C-alpha cells in the first residue's frame, strides 16, 4: 500500500509539470496584458510596470524562473490585486470555497444518494419517474438561473435568508450552497439509482434475500456499499470543481472564494494568480483521485493494488 502511494505520488509530478507548462504558455498567448486599461498608459510607464513585474525578460526565462519560484511554494505577486500575493489570495479564498463546497458536497451526497435509492426501490413506478424528473430539473436549469430565482424567493419575497455576501455565518451560506449542490444532487441521484438497480438485481442480493435477511439489512449491509462505487468515482473529480468554487455562484452571491479567479484571472491577464489557482486545482484533482482509489479499496475489497 505504501509502495503504491509513493508510486502514485511520483507519477503525479510529470502530470503536474505538463499541466503547468500548458497553462503557462496558454495564458501568455492571449492578446493584451495585465496593465491594459481604457486610459492608455504612456509607454514609459508601461515599461516601468513591466520591469517591476519582470515581464520584460524572454518568455522562456520567465518560465524557468516561475518553475523555480513555485518549487519554493512562492506563487508571486498578483498582477491585478497588486497589494496581495497569490499565496495570500489563495489562503484567503480557499477556506471560503472549501466551506461552501464542502456543504454543497454533503448536501449533494445525502440528498442525491437518498433520492437515488428511493427511486431505485420504486423502479419504474410513477414516484420513480416523478423524483427523477424533479432531479433532472437540477441538471436542466443552469445555475445562473436557479441562483437568482432562489434569491428572489427566499431573500426578497419571503425574507428568510440574506441575498448574498459572505461573513462566515450559516445564514449567508445556505442559498449559495443549495444553488451549488442542485445540479450535483441530480447527478448523484441518477448514478445512485442506476447502480442501486444493478446491485439489487445481482445474485448476492438475491441470495441474501432468499436467506430471509430483513430488507433494510439487505439494503444497508450489502447493497449500499457496492452501489456507492460509481457515486464515489463521480464525486472525486467533481469535488475538486466544487471545492475550488464556481464563478457563477460567487458572482451572483458575492462570495470571495477562488472560483472566480479562474475566469476573472484569465480575463484580467493576471498571469500569476491564474497559474496559482490552476496548480491548486490540479493538485486537488490528483489528491482526490488518489482518495477515490482508497475509498474504492475500502468499499470493494476485491480491488487490490499491484505493487
Amino acid at each position, binding site marked *: 500500500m505504501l509502495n503504491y502511494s509513493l508510486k502514485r505520488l511520483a507519477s503525479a509530478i510529470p502530470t503536474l509539470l505538463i499541466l503547468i507548462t500548458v497553462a503557462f504558455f496558454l495564458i501568455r498567448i492571449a492578446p493584451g496584458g495585465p496593465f491594459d486599461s481604457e486610459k492608455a498608459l504612456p509607454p514609459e510607464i508601461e515599461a516601468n510596470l513591466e520591469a517591476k513585474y519582470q515581464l520584460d525578460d524572454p518568455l522562456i526565462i520567465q518560465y524557468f524562473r516561475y518553475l523555480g519560484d513555485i518549487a519554493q511554494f512562492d506563487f508571486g505577486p498578483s498582477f491585478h490585486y497588486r*497589494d496581495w500575493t497569490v499565496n495570500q489570495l489563495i489562503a484567503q479564498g480557499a477556506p471560503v470555497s472549501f466551506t461552501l463546497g464542502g456543504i454543497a458536497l454533503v448536501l449533494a451526497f445525502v440528498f442525491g444518494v437518498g433520492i437515488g435509492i428511493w427511486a431505485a426501490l420504486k423502479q419504474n413506478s410513477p414516484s420513480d419517474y416523478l423524483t427523477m424528473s424533479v432531479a433532472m430539473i437540477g441538471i436542466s436549469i443552469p445555475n445562473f438561473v436557479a441562483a437568482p430565482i432562489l434569491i428572489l424567493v427566499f431573500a426578497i419575497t419571503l425574507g428568510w435568508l440574506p441575498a448574498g*455576501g459572505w461573513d462566515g455565518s450559516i445564514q449567508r451560506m445556505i442559498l449559495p450552497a443549495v444553488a451549488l449542490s442542485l445540479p450535483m444532487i441530480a447527478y448523484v441521484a441518477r448514478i445512485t439509482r442506476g447502480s442501486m438497480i444493478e446491485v439489487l438485481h445481482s445474485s448476492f442480493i438475491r441470495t441474501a434475500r432468499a436467506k430471509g435477511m430483513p430488507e433494510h439489512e439487505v439494503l444497508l449491509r450489502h447493497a449500499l456499499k457496492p452501489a456507492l462505487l460509481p457515486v464515489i468515482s463521480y464525486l472525486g473529480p467533481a469535488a475538486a470543481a466544487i471545492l475550488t468554487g464556481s464563478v457563477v455562484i460567487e458572482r451572483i452571491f458575492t462570495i470571495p472564494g477562488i472560483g472566480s479567479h479562474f475566469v476573472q484571472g484569465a480575463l484580467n491577464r493576471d498571469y500569476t494568480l491564474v497559474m496559482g489557482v490552476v496548480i491548486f486545482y490540479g493538485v486537488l484533482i490528483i489528491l482526490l483521485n488518489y482518495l477515490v482509489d482508497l475509498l474504492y479499496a475500502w468499499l470493494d475489497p476485491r480491488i487490490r493494488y499491484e505493487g
Partner: protein
Amino acid sequence: MPNVRVNLFSALLPGLALMVAGCGDGSEQPTPQPIRLAEPVPVTLDAFGRPAPDVLAEQQQLHRGNGEEPQTLDPHRAEGVPTANILRDLFEGLATTAPDGRIVPGAAGRWDISRDGMTYTFYLREDGRWSNGDPVTAEDFVFSFRRSVDPATAAVYGRMLMPIENAQAILAGDQPPENLGVEALNERTVQIRLDDPTPYFLGLLTHASTYPVHRPSLVEHGDDFVLPGNLVSNGAYELVEWVPRSRLVLDRNLDYHSAGGVIIERVVYYPIEDENTEFQRFRVGDLHWTDQVPSNLFGWLSVNLPQALSVSPWFGTYYFGFNLTRGPFRDNLPLRRALNLAIDRDILTGKVTQFGEIPTFTLVPDGLPDYEPPLPDYAILTQAQREEMARELYREAGYSEDDPLEVELRYNTSENHRKIAVAVAAMWKQTLGVRTRLINEEFRVFLQNRAMRRNTEVFRAGWIGDYQDAFTFLELFHSAHRRNDSGYDNPRYDRLLEQISTERIPARRRNLMVEAERMLLGDQVVLPVYTYVTKRLVNPLLKGWEPNVMDFHPSRQMFFVKSRAQAEAEAAAMQPEVAPETETDSGTTGDVTVVEEGTT
C-alpha cells in the same frame, strides 16, 4: 447591520406568480405597490451649518456597494473609479471637493496662484495630522509628488502630474525625481511650479496620484504599507479591515483636522460587480448606497423605488469611433457623416439605455461652467430630416441599396454595449441598408485591436473626463495620444491643442477649445451618442451628499437622519400625556429621552 426595513411582498408576488404559472398575459398583473423605505425627517441645521443633533440617527454606519475590488490602495498606483472612491475617504490632497463638486481647500487651508498661472503656493493646515498623530508637513507632499512621478513607482496615473515642471522628463527616466518642480518652502508651505499655465490644475489635486503618503510607514513596510494595520492616512477615515473581494472597513480618523464634523463613524465598502446582485442586496437592506443600477430596471424602479433612485449627468461621453487609417472610413467624410446622422439618439437613450442619458452630437459634455460645446447645424433638425441627409450622403459616399456598405462594429463584452450596438446596427440597416457585423470582444482583446487600428472599423468608446476641463476630451485626438484609436492625424488640430496648452487668457483659451472641437466634429472623427449619467440607489435616510458631474461623494460629508416614524415615536415618548399642540419644543426637553433611547 444597517437597520433598513424593506417590505417587498406586495411588489414581488405578481412577478413570481407569473413565472410559476407560466401565464403569458401581462395585463392581469396588478399594479405594483411601491416598496416602502423609511421616510426621512427634514434636515435642520445648527448654528455652525451642521445637521442638528436631534435629526441625526443613532446608527451612523454606512454600507456602500462599490463595483470592482480595488486593485491597490496605494494612491499613486491606483486606478479605476471604485478605488478612487475608497481613497477619497482615506486620503486628502491639497485640494478637495464640496458635495456639489466645487474645489475647496483640503490638506492645504488656502493657496496663492501667481499672476502668470505657473506657480502655486499652498499653505497647509496647522492642524493637519496623519492617522497616527504625526503632523502632515510640506515635506510629506514633496516626497509624495516625487514618488508619484518616480519611474520606480510605476504609477499608472503619473501623467496626471505632467503639467508640473520636469514631470515628463522624470517619468521618462531622463531626470531624477528630485528635479520635480515641487518644493517645501517651510514646514507648512508647498510650492509647485508648472511648465504651462494649466487652468484645471487645482482639479488635478483632487486626484489620488497627488495624495500624500506617510513616508515612515512606507519605509518600514515597503509595498505592504497599504495593508490594514500598516496604512497611515491623512483623510477623514482610516483603514481597519480589508478582506479582498469581500469588504473593506474604514473607521473615522480621530486625528483628521475636521474630525469633529465627520458624522459617519464607519464605512464598509463591498466590491459587488454584478449589478443585479447589488440591487438585491440593496433591497434587503445590506447596502445604503449602490455603485450601479441594472440597466433594464428603470421602469420598475421609477414605480417601486423612486425615492431611492438617483440619476444625474456625469462628465463623460459615450461614442463610437471610426478607424480613419483604413477603408472604408479613410478619406470618406460623407460616409462617416451619413452613419452619424442615421442613428436616432432619442430612441437609443429613451428605449435602450432608459435612465435619462442625454442625447448628444458633441464630444465634450454640456454643463462645464466655462465651456459651451459647438453644436453642429444638423443638431436642430428633426430625425426624419437627418435621415434624409444621411441617405444623400450615403449615396454621395458611393454606396446604395444594391451596393451596401458592409462594416464591422466592435464592442467589448457588456450588456449595455451589446444593446446599443444591436440598436445602432438595426438603425443603419433600416435607414441606409448598411450591413453591420457585430463583433463582441473580450475587453483586453478589444483594447488591443483598437490601439493597433488593424482590424477595427467602427468601435465603441467612452470617455469619462479626468478633470473638469474640455481639454481632457480634446487631447484624446492629438496625433501622438496613446488612446487616439481613430488614428486622427491633423496637424492643424495638433497645433490648436498646443496653443491651448500655452494660452494664458481664459477667454481665448476657451475659443481655441471650441474651435478644436468644431474641427473634430466637422471631420466626424467620432460619432457621439449620449452623455453618461450616474445612476444609483441611495437609502433616503442618507443625507449630506449631492449629485455632481464628477460623481465624487466622500463619506465624510454624509450622515443618516432619523426616520419620520422614529422621530414621531420619540416625540410621543417625550410628552406622553400632553397633546402635541406646539411642535416647536422638541429640542428643549430631549436630553433624558435621548439617553433612554440610546440604551434600549
